[in-house]
């Protein structure tokens, strides 16, 4: 009987482990799920949690967009969680669906996309340097890289 209690406790712990919570990126250790590069830059990293709770880490939002291009069902799933680092607060995740993406030639993002994410639109506008810079929202960005 005592052992049963322990088994139930263990099961509860295991089930509790299956959460959809984001996992912090280990900079300098974790590799990008798309381009295989080691994730280094806190300004550009991104993370994806699928509806089933599978977690993918990326070194840049352009990598996450490219990964979604190859995994359409994840991209269109409303239960997928997309997180991007806010450029103005390096290392802090923001909801990609609510973020603004600035493509500006002065941004040297890891995969050459010149792309950074901002949670606030004014911050994205303020970071503009290039005249031809453009700001997208999440759905535009994903559709564009299709």
């Amino acid at each position, binding site marked *: 009987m005592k052992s049963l209690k322990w088994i139930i406790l263990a099961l509860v712990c295991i089930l509790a482990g299956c959460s959809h919570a984001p996992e912090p990126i280990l*900079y*300098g250790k974790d*590799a990008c799920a798309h*381009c*295989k*590069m*080691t994730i*280094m830059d*806190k*300004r550009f990293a991104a993370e994806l949690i699928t509806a089933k709770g599978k977690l993918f880490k990326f070194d840049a939002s352009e990598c996450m967009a490219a990964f979604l291009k190859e995994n359409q069902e994840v991209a269109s799933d409303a239960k997928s969680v997309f997180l991007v680092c806010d450029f103005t607060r*390096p290392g802090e995740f923001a909801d990609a669906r609510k973020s603004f993406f600035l493509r500006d030639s002065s941004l*040297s993002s890891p*995969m*050459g996309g010149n792309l950074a994410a901002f949670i606030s639109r004014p911050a994205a506008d303020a970071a503009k340097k290039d005249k031809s810079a453009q700001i997208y929202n999440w759905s535009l960005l994903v559709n564009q890289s299709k």
Partner: protein
Amino acid sequence: MKSLIVKIAVLFLMTLPVSARTIVVAPGTPVSSLKQAVTIAKNGDTILVKKGTYISFNTLIDKELTILGQGWPVLDARFREEVLTITASHVKLDGFIVTNSKTGSMRDFAGIRLSNAEFITISNNILTNNFFGIYLSNCTHIELLHNRITGSNNIENSGNGIHLWKCKEVLIKENYVTRHRDGIYFEFAKKCLIQDNLSEKNIRYGLHFMFSDDDTYRHNTFKNNGSGVSVMYTRRIAMLDNTFIENWGSSIYGVLLKEITDSRIEGNHFIRNTTGIYMENSDRITVIHNDFISNGWAMRVLASCNKDHFTRNNYKGNSFDVTTNGTLKEIDFDNNYWDKYEGYDLDKNGIGDVPYRPISLYAQIIEQNPQSVMLMRSFIVNLIDKVERAIPSITPESVKDIKPAMKPWKK
């Protein structure tokens, strides 16, 4: 009349060398900083900087100057700015200690920045504690020779040791780069030669190529870097006679090749790496005369690769010679030496009479079920590999060395 013109011409020519002055910079003298010297200098002058420590908050070099350090003068930005920026062409900078550039996430601060310039030589300098070491943007015909570049080894505050962006025809020779993010980083850098450098203990890659075509790197050593060397999205690269040694850990490779085409990997040594070469979406690559010694995986070739040719390589003491994740097409192996080959050579022509299959059954099992790695070197694994070798049924039929060499290749 004619002789007069000649005389005038001769006189004019004689005055030219005289006009190129040498300006001496030393502490406690009227000219006590490099900035002052550059202000009073004219194109073609030489600035000689004597031993001492000079504060340099982004000294701008916008004239054609030869700047020489004597007795290792120190240019220190005290973490407040970049140290030096060169925007003029025909500049030579030699013999300095360049140190303590600012760090930070909003701009790429560098020890020595070269911007929109050509014909510049940066030689015999020691760079320490800079965010980026030498940063080249939009430059052509540059020589970086014999510099020692040491970063802070701090993940947050480390840029690349040598960073090239949109450059052409750059020679990088006999430099030592350590403790930076990437030792040498190329983005849109074309027709460059990287030779005789040592890049070790960098946080990420020893060498990192992105979108850079027609480059050659030869006779370099990449040792103990966070993730080895990465060559991505490039064409026509020659990798010759390099040594890739001790790049250990998960997702760490001697060389990571991704979307690279028409390249040649020749005469390299891959020693004690987790994975010697990892290839993904890489087409028309020739891998010849390389040594793969004591690696976990000598090569991991993904099914997305096409028309690659592996010949005359030595595979010795690797846990796995080749692994893949699917069906390999048009990947040719011939004349390689495999120490696991157990065939025979009855006609004594130096070539084994039966083909060698480099992908073992156990490697296939691990591919499907990574946890089974714990059975490595167990009796059962040896048994199934032996059975599979004798009667191949599961390992891919297409991947085989039809002419395995009986003896290792010598240079």
